[in-house]
């Protein structure tokens, strides 16, 4: 067995060799380089972790957009179905059409997803939710013959299913954002996050009807 197979011995020999070779200044330089290397490794780790979380958020966002898109696609069908009824209230349909147009304008940059962007997106989508719900409510209340058709009932089922999916995907998105924001704001990592261009992302807030029972004025 050769001497270089004993790793500890080799390391000790190398250190002694370095010690005898180096001057004091060199030792300082080596120490700094070592510290920088350690910090760099840590920074790379932080960056990669944040990238992973960011990817998860974007994946979840894509799903959110998917299910909202699904609803967008159903709305022309809803409009044309109820439009067929004579004297159908124009104002109800106008509200749906306007809300749909509003959603089309509220495009969001998936790479940022800032709190303002998510809030604006949610506002536009929630307005559409309300308009769709209102359309169905009005139809059920005043146009029973329309409600009885299989076409309308199928459409209603599809819209309900879409709302369920929206709720699920919004929940998943919030979970992903929570993991991201936590990783972002935890102490040592928080020092670097801003430098690497990671910023806090926005959540979806609970739908209004769920928040209704708890009414508190924010006056500080």
């Amino acid at each position: 067995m050769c001497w270089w197979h004993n790793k500890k011995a080799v390391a000790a020999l190398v250190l002694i060799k370095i010690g005898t070779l180096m001057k004091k200044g060199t030792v300082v330089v080596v120490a700094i380089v070592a510290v920088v290397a350690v910090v760099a490794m840590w920074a790379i780790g932080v960056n990669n972790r944040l990238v992973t979380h960011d990817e998860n958020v974007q994946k979840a966002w894509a799903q959110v957009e998917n299910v909202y898109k699904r609803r967008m696609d159903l709305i022309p069908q809803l409009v044309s179905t109820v439009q067929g009824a004579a004297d159908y209230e124009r104002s109800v349909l106008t509200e749906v059409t306007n809300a749909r147009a509003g959603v089309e304008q509220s495009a969001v940059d998936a790479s940022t997803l800032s709190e303002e962007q998510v809030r604006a997106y949610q506002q536009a989508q929630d307005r559409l939710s309300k308009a769709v719900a209102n359309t169905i409510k009005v139809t059920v209340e005043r146009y029973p013959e329309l409600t009885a058709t299989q076409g309308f009932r199928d459409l209603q089922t599809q819209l309900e299913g879409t709302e369920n999916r929206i709720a699920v995907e919004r929940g998943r998105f919030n979970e992903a954002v929570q993991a991201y924001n936590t990783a972002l704001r935890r102490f040592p990592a928080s020092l670097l996050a801003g430098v690497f261009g990671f910023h806090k992302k926005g959540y979806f807030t609970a739908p209004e009807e769920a928040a209704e029972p708890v009414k508190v004025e924010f006056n500080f």
Partner: protein
Amino acid sequence: MRRWLALVLLLAAAVARAEWLPPRLDRLVNDYSGVLSAEQAAGLERRLVSFADSTSNQVVVVITPTLEGDDEQSAAQRLGERWGVGQSRFDNGLVILIKSKTPDEDWGAVALATGYGVEGALPDVFCKRIIDDRMLPALGEGDYYGAVVAALDVVEPAMRGEYSFGQYRDDERRAALRALLPLIVFFVAVIVALVLYYKKHPDQWNNTGRGGGGGGGIYLGGFPGSFGDGRGSSGGSFGGFGGFGGGSFGGGGASGRF
């Protein structure tokens, strides 16, 4: 301060919206209401286990006396997600959740929740039809077992990929036609018989006043009976259920009340 308050509010909202979730056991038929007999439950379990073994699709049946204030559709979705019904690679799980009627809560509900992977085989509209056409009539009479079997008879071939929603609709149409068939045959037979009768006795065509004339025997063929579809369950292997596969649920499905 504001942040804390928001957190408290969020928690309050979470508490206010009850989240019903029974503990996960390694079995596919979970009757917490005790509305299935032991043989029925065992038979369903065998059927579902053999279906899971042969297709990797997992169907879970949960019957509960209460949802603790939860909404049946989201309860079914959450149960599927947390239990991991279906294979994680295919997300091919289905949850059949029935809230039974009890003296305390005199309303029943049923929800189907589809995993991401079976949303194509079982679109929401299809689920709604299964509930409305096949489950609610049985459930209305308190026949929980019949409702589950009626759903499985359609759901299993659909999940296996043998049966699509379009075919189901055509079948319904054909069934409606079959129901009308005896009537149609009856009228055709009457007309044919009358035509034959007057061809043989043309003199009687216009005799409204004079009586007489032997009564012609009019034969009406026997009606083709309509048969109920006799698709039975196929009891297969006796091996136990191997465990849930971690499938994921995106909120697909439908629900109904009885």
